[in-house]
């Protein structure tokens, strides 16, 4: 095992090629020594005695002659124990904070293994985030993977921090939760922003941070989310904790994947991304969930910035096919000063239907959410019409929709960064807004619910008049 290979055959981008290797195994880790420096790499292709190795730290400074390479005989594993709380680690799980090595309780393979579908527990418990748009319209469920589709310059980081601060699980105490934070290719100040926010909200001792910042090596970025999820799986399924994983920014991750793929000379599919982008993203996102008989859970909030705000770009597109819904941020709302600028119509939570309503939130929640969606969709049509014929020419009903739309955006979607709204408060607010519309427009709700919750239109109107 301790054979050392001197020199390399070839260097190409982040990849090096070793020749004459005895007994390599696929995805085995290697250690490359240059002078006093030690680099970590992973075998990604074998052909006879020739191995292609991707080097996590990058290949600058490496020549064909100045290296000694050693095979480590195992795939990438990270040390784990409960002591990882409060620690800041690099993209492959090595301490960055100067507090010394982690004393491991055990090592786990970062690649993980797929959860057997028959052993999954279907997620049902909803998490109250205190944000009306999310709680009412795209409810977050414990064990769900719900990404934030954002754009550059939009407040996705604030939103993530607000969710972390306010997340509450109905009828359970909150002392069993943990946060795993993975930064991939984000700027230093963004990472700092998260760290400071965690500190100021007093959760820092429940956070593990994996940082691969914008100037850190690209290859390391590929394993960063996997390290983070390995830690999350350890905490959730062995230590029975409820883990919230924040992965930011998945677009940088996908770009790193593309970079490596192209230096391997692989055939590109859409926009130069490798054909296995879907499978690769799935191997990350599918690591969310719950397992039968285990108390813990992994809830994922991946954040990705849509290049050019384009939701059909391969990264958001493939993500949306894997995750259980999405929260889409909208530049138009943001520029009108709406925070959080959640674009309601394309946002969706696939798991909410089984975690809301009677017994979970309130019996009117599903119908109310549907009605708000339908009404707000109508608002968009009316606005399109108004932009052609002018608002004055609209019919009375359409004018009511215009008013509803404005009140909805400024009172329901919009809330303060520190404002936490209880689910009941959110639902009542939804009803007040719907009451701006004539009763017969509420076609997605059963008549009984309308009787029970529909309030006096005039009262609603006087309350929201200044916003309409």
């Amino acid at each position, binding site marked *: 095992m301790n054979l050392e290979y001197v020199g390399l055959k070839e260097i190409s981008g982040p990849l090096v090629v070793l020749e004459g290797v005895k*007994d390599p195994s*696929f995805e085995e880790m290697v250690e490359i020594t240059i002078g006093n420096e030690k680099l970590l790499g992973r075998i990604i292709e074998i052909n006879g005695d020739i191995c292609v190795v991707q080097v996590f730290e990058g290949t600058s400074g490496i020549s064909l002659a100045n290296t000694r390479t050693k095979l480590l005989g195992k795939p990438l594993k990270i040390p784990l124990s409960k002591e990882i709380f409060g620690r800041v680690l690099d993209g492959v799980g090595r301490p960055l904070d100067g507090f010394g090595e982690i004393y491991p309780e055990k090592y786990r393979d970062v690649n993980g293994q797929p*959860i057997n579908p028959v052993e999954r527990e279907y997620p049902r418990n909803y998490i109250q985030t205190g944000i009306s748009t999310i709680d009412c319209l795209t409810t977050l469920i414990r*064990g769900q993977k719900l990404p934030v589709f954002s754009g550059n310059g939009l407040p996705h980081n604030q939103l993530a921090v607000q969710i972390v601060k306010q997340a509450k699980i109905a009828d359970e105490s909150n002392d069993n939760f943990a946060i795993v934070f993975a930064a991939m290719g984000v700027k230093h100040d963004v990472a700092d922003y998260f760290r400071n926010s965690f500190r100021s909200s007093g959760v820092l001792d429940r956070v593990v941070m994996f940082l691969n910042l914008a100037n850190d090596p690209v290859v390391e970025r590929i394993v960063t989310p996997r390290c983070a999820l390995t830690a999350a799986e350890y905490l959730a399924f062995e230590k029975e904790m409820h883990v919230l994983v924040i992965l930011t920014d998945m677009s940088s991750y996908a770009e790193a994947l593309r970079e490596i793929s192209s230096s391997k000379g692989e055939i*590109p599919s859409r926009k130069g991304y490798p*054909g*296995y982008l879907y499978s690769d993203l799935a191997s990350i996102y599918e690591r969310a969930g719950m397992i039968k008989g285990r108390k813990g859970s992994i809830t994922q909030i991946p954040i990705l910035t849509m290049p050019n705000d384009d939701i*059909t770009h391969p990264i958001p597109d493939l993500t949306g096919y894997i995750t259980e819904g999405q929260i889409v941020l909208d530049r138009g709302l943001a520029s009108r000063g709406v925070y959080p600028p959640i674009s309601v119509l394309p946002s969706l939570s696939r798991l909410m239907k089984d975690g809301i309503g009677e017994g979970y939130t309130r019996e009117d929640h599903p119908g109310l959410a549907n009605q708000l969606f339908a009404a707000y969709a109508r608002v968009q049509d009316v606005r399109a019409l108004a932009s052609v014929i002018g608002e004055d020419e609209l019919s009375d009903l359409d004018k009511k929709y215009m008013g509803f739309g404005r009140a909805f955006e400024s009172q329901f979607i919009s809330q303060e960064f520190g404002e936490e709204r209880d689910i009941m408060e959110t639902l009542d607010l939804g009803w007040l807004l719907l009451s701006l519309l004539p009763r017969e427009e509420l076609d997605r709700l059963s008549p009984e619910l309308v009787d029970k919750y529909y309030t006096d239109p005039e009262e609603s109107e006087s309350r929201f008049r200044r916003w309409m």
Partner: protein
Amino acid sequence: MGVTSQGTIYGINGPVVRVRGNHPFQMMEMVLVGNERLIGEVIRVLEDETIVQVYENTTGLKPGEPVISTGRPLTVKLGPGIIGNIFDGIERPLTSIAEKTGPFIGRGTVMENLDAEKLWDVKVLVRSGYELKPGTVIAEVRETPSVVHRVMVPPGIGGVVDEVVKDGSYPITQAIVRIRNGKVIHDLAMVQEWPVRTPRPYKRRLSMNEPLITGQRVIDSLFPIAKGGTAAIPGGFGTGKTLTQHQLAKWSNADIIVYVGCGERGNEITQVLEDFPNLIDPRNNRPLMERTVIIANTSNMPVAAREASIYTGITLAEYYRDMGYHVAVMADSTSRWAEALREISGRLEEMPAEEGFPAYLPSRLSEFYERAGMVETLNDSTGSISIIGAVSPQGGDFSEPVTQNTKRFIRCFWALDKSLAYTRHYPAINWMDSYSEYTEELKDWYIQNAAPDFMEKRERISRILQEESKLLEIVKLIGSDILPNEQKLVLESARVIRQGFLQQNAYHEQDTYVPIIKQYHMMKSVLNLHDRAAKLVAKGIPVSVIKRTGVFEEVIKAKYTTSSDDMEAFETLDSGIDSILAGIEEGYRGTERRRHA
């Protein structure tokens, strides 16, 4: 044969393994790779090298490890124990994997595909001296309370019965009938094997003339699929492909459902496993799971097995078709399967065609969809396979290669629409882009079994919707206030059709499944209202007056307020509407008279 013939691993690149050695492997042969005996399949044979795709994660494989030939292609075991079970892409039962490797799926778990120890009550149907042909039913086993499993002579085998066992309880591997063909003796057990990539034989194809009733109004009434037909459900994410597939798996009137979860979410499979045992089949009051088999290869499971899962599913379906059952295959999603092809093809460095997909994508798709059909089986019974494939187009753009090539081989297209999904109009099947080529063939069935004027009602409904879409173009420019009353009425009736008929609530007890006769009455009520209102409009009564009475809302709500077995409720509804509208007319006449006086 068997263990002696082998090669050794030379190279590894993801799921693709290069094998050297002098053993002549066959194309598409199943092989066992490495010390852990991972299952793989030969996908290319070169002069000095064989390429294998491995159905499991290849981390830790080493060059020099053995690759063992099995001498046969990738096969599945067919016999009692399939229904109600859940398998991975190569027919390994996931519950047994869980027993062996815990909640996470381990590797190299070679195991029995079907429970070999369980005893089944066998009723032998043949006696010694009978002459048996391929496909003849030799015994019956009650596989689940809903399904009688007919044990058949495997294709390609025949002869005279020599010996049979007594009726009783046997495991699936026990020989129950011995047949002799000249000097050749075959011992037939309940279980047989079949290579997944080869279609099972049948006698001849039959024409399709019966619809697969799904209880979903937009499908059954507007875009029906025939038993034995093929349909595609394309749609971007969040448009409800999976929900529609689940609804069809739950309520369609097939005898057997094969649900292939191909590269999709783990939780969706969990949901099926949770829902189906608790849902009751309206036809025999038994849990739906008793007629369902699930093939689950979620997106994070190995990609090569994803490619195989589609074939595994269709082979199981063909086996039950051969027993004379009507089988429906739900493939969710065929795009993931196509991507698996692309991924493997890329690793083989094949020349890509469109968007990186291999040039053989269309031929693979057509091979798959051609395995659907209504047939006369080898034992002269009638069976069918209907395939309903979900398509996940990249960026929701229907012009991409998988959607386009699929469109060539299916005859029923249910296009899901993002803007409908945004307004939470489910099922989000767009009535303008969707089509069914089966309506002509199914016409007679509807006339005989639903109502003589069913097709006319259907025509009129789609005509109103078409008119609406034309009018909406105008409304977008000038608003609806300026339209003449006749056109306003069209918009109003179309709204009733959209909200009261096309929209269907999968979570509403009354609305999740709607029998064809209720669908007919709903259409009839809408049209009755439209016709009555048109008469009033012709007399100069504005639509807004009619609208104020709430009659349109009344008809929209009928889907919730009328039960599925009470068709008289519609008579009451219609006569109620008639009298309200007559009231308006009366009042209007009154004002007219006053004006004249």
